[in-house]
């Protein structure tokens, strides 16, 4: 099993959810994060004092999937999320050693 960790613009969450649904991926976990990369944040003035908002809001979507679907999913994810503008974000792939479905106690591929 692999974990895909997609870090991207918050407004893309709905599209990713739709894609997952269509692709039959049945689980994911979402959290709000902030990030910086090439896209560097912006300067604003508050009560006359300049300050930098140097972390931008991003959404992190984690989904653990079977090895075989990884490549196809990566491609459709890119298609869905890409705007071509800086700030599109990254997808990282990790190995998952084991998974447990708490409700049933099932392990491994059965669990996801």
């Amino acid at each position: 099993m692999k974990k895909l960790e997609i870090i991207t613009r918050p407004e893309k969450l709905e599209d990713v959810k739709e894609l997952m649904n269509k692709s039959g991926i049945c689980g994911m976990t979402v959290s709000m994060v902030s990030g910086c990369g090439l896209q560097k944040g912006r300067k604003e003035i508050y009560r006359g004092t300049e300050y930098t908002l140097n972390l931008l809001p991003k959404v992190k979507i984690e989904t653990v999937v079977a090895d075989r679907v990884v490549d196809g999913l990566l491609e459709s994810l890119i298609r869905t999320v890409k705007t071509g503008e800086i700030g599109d974000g990254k997808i990282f792939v990790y190995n998952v050693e084991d998974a447990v479905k708490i409700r049933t106690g099932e392990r491994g591929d059965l669990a996801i």
Partner: protein
Amino acid sequence: MKKKILIFAVVLAIMLIPTLTLAADEEIGEATKMAINTVWTLLAAFLVFFMQAGFAMVETGLTRAKNAGNIIMKNLMDFAIGSVAFFAVGFAFMFGADQGGFIGMSGFFGLDKMEHLGLGIPLEAFIIFQTVFAATAATIVSGAMAERTKFIAYVIYSAVISLIIYPVVGHWVWGGGWLSKMGFIDFAGSTVVHSVGGWAALIGAAIIGPRIGKYNKDGKPNAIPGHSITLAALGVFILWFGWFGFNPGSTLAGTDMSIGRISMTTNLAAAVSATVVMIITWIRYGKPDVSMTLNGALAGLVAITAGCAAVSMIGSMFIGLVAGIVVVFGIEFIDRVLKIDDPVGAIGVHGLCGATGTILVGLFATETGAFYGHGFNQLLVQAIGVGAVAVWVIATTFVLFNIIKATVGLRVEKEHEETGLDIHEHGSEAYADFHIKTADTLF
């Protein structure tokens, strides 16, 4: 002007205290009367001023956190700019010497004596009372156009409505203009104040178009929940509180003993309307909807405003009942059928219920209404008034918003709307310490 019914009040007072023998010098002296009336009018004006806080809280509460600062700023500035604009010009258009029943033309910058008004209170007390009313009309629009309007566009709009659009209507009805001569009854402004704001909101929201994400491609509306029901509710309580200045205060006379009844009709209409909306939403949606019920309370308040001094307490309950029905189905109609995106329900509350309440005076007014056997004349006059004001406001705001659109622009850029107006229009966030679900800019 509002009718002085002092002598009647005194007679009433005498009747109510039958055990006391009254001296011959019973009538209230002029200086005393003026003092009492000035105190009353000013305190009512202060309560109406406080409605600005109510509007600010309702509007911000029912919209998203990323735009909270922008809405606050619009509410603050429409009052600030409107106060100056109305003092300088609007008041003169509204209450200046009548020009053909259409507009007034004296009293710019408070510099004329305005004796033709026959005021029983100092002119300045009257101006402050009228200023806070003007600001109420202006502020209604900010909610309906929230979360997507350019700040500069709103600033221009709010100056224009305070300078001319509202004052003209005010002149027709309260400044001795043609509607007042026809016997149109709008005691405290269901039409003059609320429906003016409501129609302007309708046109503004229609021209600017819905927020991104409000409608699916197939036209199905999506819910975009507000960020703080507690602040919205606080706003409703503040507005209800302020309305006790708005309606009873419109007597401009604390010596007018109908102020007790006006307080009661105001309260009962709001209470019934809120209850009715709770019941309707409970039945229709399966659960009593909080934010719609909050709108319901306001709907009753708006609707009773025209007739608060003319209807009985029991009549006011019926007006509240109708308002509750109108506001639910009206908001649904605007949202689903007209597909006009009004984040806070301002069109339904102020436009529809303002019009409805004004018309209902033709039925429920105890002295002139159809239900009390006085025929349909009053009803007809009410309908004409409502219609004429709607035409005027719709026409002028249609032109106004289109001019703004063509010049400075009406709507913010797509990206700004997505990330929030606070950052883009004002360079700061409203809730810098909290994690916001969308579009926040952390740290």
